[in-house]
């Protein structure tokens, strides 16, 4: 919504975090956002609200208060049980129009990245995707949003001066989860579900959670990834074993996915997932630029390869020249012994 004068802008107050929910639980990105949102709310001298849209959400408010929220805005209704883009967007747009928050944050997850752009268009607000940094500009009080673009080759700072709210999606695992204070409490703001929000045009027939596939790529602190040199499914079984002992996720290069050794859900890089783990262990991945742009912002990069001249070996903090089929089993043994 366009707010050209100070008076119009001043109608918008408070920082909102739109919670990312799974049945009966709150995803950790929500806590990370409450940590970031608390800082912004304190800098603006306003409240931090957590928005809980779904079924059975009223019971989750306490956890939000314990992590810094001053209020929980709850719509607890079967009409929002499954994520249907239109229904959730209609609900959030209506709540924003009514309560007028100054800043709205949401996780840059599959759902967040579908929901928030729809809302931003509906309410004519500015939106920045996939932020890695958020701060308040001291003089203007505006939200400065920092984000990588072009696979991390450019860092851009973006603001939205004349539109409210200022909206951003934030990458999971970038902001720090705040400490839990069980003594903190807050205000419950309940809104009822308006049947007009529901989508007449789209329905979720089935929601399937893939069980037993280990840690999710985007959430992992540690990623063990394999490339062409893994030679086949057996090579990935070995890497899966290492991922299990380090409590990490399994990643792959495009070559390995295209060869059918592992599912696309594991692909890291330009046409796969962009990841930012604490440690990325690349096994037999030569390091095509399209792969590097998807993982080069990892805190620590370790490469194992026979070829010391491979681009991944040059990028790595630790370049191990050797046979991955000897080194990985030895690593598993070594870690088990700890």
């Amino acid at each position, binding site marked *: 919504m366009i707010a050209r004068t100070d008076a119009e802008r001043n109608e918008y107050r408070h920082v909102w975090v739109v919670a990312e929910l*799974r049945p009966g639980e709150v995803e950790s990105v929500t806590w990370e956002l409450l940590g970031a949102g608390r800082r912004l709310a304190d800098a603006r001298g306003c409240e931090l609200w957590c928005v809980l849209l779904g079924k059975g959400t009223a019971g989750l408010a306490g956890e939000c208060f314990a992590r810094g929220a001053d209020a929980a805005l709850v719509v607890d209704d079967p009409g929002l049980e499954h994520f249907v*883009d*239109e229904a959730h967007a209609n609900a959030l747009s209506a709540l924003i129009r009514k309560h007028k928050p100054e800043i709205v944050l949401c996780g840059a*997850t*599959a*759902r967040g*990245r579908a929901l928030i*752009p*729809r*809302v931003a*268009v509906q309410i004519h607000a*500015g*939106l920045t*995707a996939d932020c890695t940094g958020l701060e308040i500009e001291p003089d203007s009080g505006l939200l400065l949003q920092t984000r*990588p*673009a*072009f*696979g*991390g*080759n*450019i*860092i*851009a700072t*973006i*603001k*939205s001066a004349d539109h409210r709210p200022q909206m951003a999606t934030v990458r999971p695992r970038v902001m720090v989860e705040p400490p839990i204070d069980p003594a903190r409490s807050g205000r419950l703001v309940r809104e009822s579900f308006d049947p007009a929000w529901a989508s007449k*045009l789209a329905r*979720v*027939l*089935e*929601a*399937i959670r*893939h069980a037993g596939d280990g840690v*999710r790529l*985007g*959430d992992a*602190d540690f990623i063990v990834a394999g490339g062409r040199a893994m030679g086949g499914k057996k090579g990935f079984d070995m890497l899966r074993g290492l991922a299990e002992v*380090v409590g990490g996720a399994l990643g792959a290069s495009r070559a390995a996915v295209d060869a059918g050794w592992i599912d*696309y*859900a594991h692909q890291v890089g330009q046409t796969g997932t962009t990841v930012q783990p604490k*440690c990325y262990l690349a096994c037999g991945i030569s390091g095509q*630029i399209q792969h590097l*742009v998807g993982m*080069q912002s990892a805190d620590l990069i*370790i490469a194992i390869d026979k070829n010391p001249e491979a681009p991944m*070996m*040059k*990028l*790595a*903090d*630790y*370049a*191990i*020249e*050797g*046979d991955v089929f*000897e*080194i990985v089993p030895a690593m598993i043994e070594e*870690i088990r012994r*700890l």
Partner: protein
Amino acid sequence: MKIVACIKQVPGTNDCTIDPETKRLKREGVEAVLNPFDLYALEQAMLLREAVGGEVIALSMGPPQAETSLREALSCGTDRGVLLCDRAFAGSDTWATSYALATAIRHLGGVELVLCGKQAVDGDTAQVGPGIAAHLGWPQATYVSAMPGVEGKRLTVRRMNEDGHDVLEVDLPAVMTVVKDLNTPRVPTLRSCLAARKATVTVLTAADIGADARCLGLDGSPTRVVKTSPPPPRGTKTVHIAGDGRTCARQIVHELRMKSLV
């Protein structure tokens, strides 16, 4: 079925410069390629056309050189190419871009399905697909990895999320963004490339599609890029480790332990 596949020309991976004035990625005079995700949108459009009949239109917004990407789409088998090209569009953020594309789709008339790649690899925002859906007021499905069913004006699709997938039934018209899992894009033939070279790419301006100039370009964009900079350098020198498997493993596990990573 009348299908629009939205495509974007993006700078080649190694080549990106920033316009000092708009602080956005410079698109003129740089080596350019078709956004890789858009190939899956184009392929799916063609598969649907083969299954139920109809027409596939490739739609893009960009400078005159973006015509090259539309010709690439034509060589893959698209029926028509439409380029939105006007100074008025320059500097548009995702809000203004999705407004322009939605307005063009409305102008084309009778479109039942809009397919987009899940995101473009230059901006990486994934915001334009849902933005188009919102401007049109159509339902949407993002990260679509399978389309098992087409029944009249209804599509059944599978969409991916972090911990699994949903099966969704969507009534047309609708907007969908697609991922690589969906299909294997066909390779253009010599014949289709030659035909594409001769085909007409329709160029439309803001006035042609009846767009509201206040919603376009830098001035019509709610967001503004205020600063761009290179990312902080990694700054670390590579430590080389070599030897037999056990020695290497012992050394790297020690390093991981020192960093509390295991």
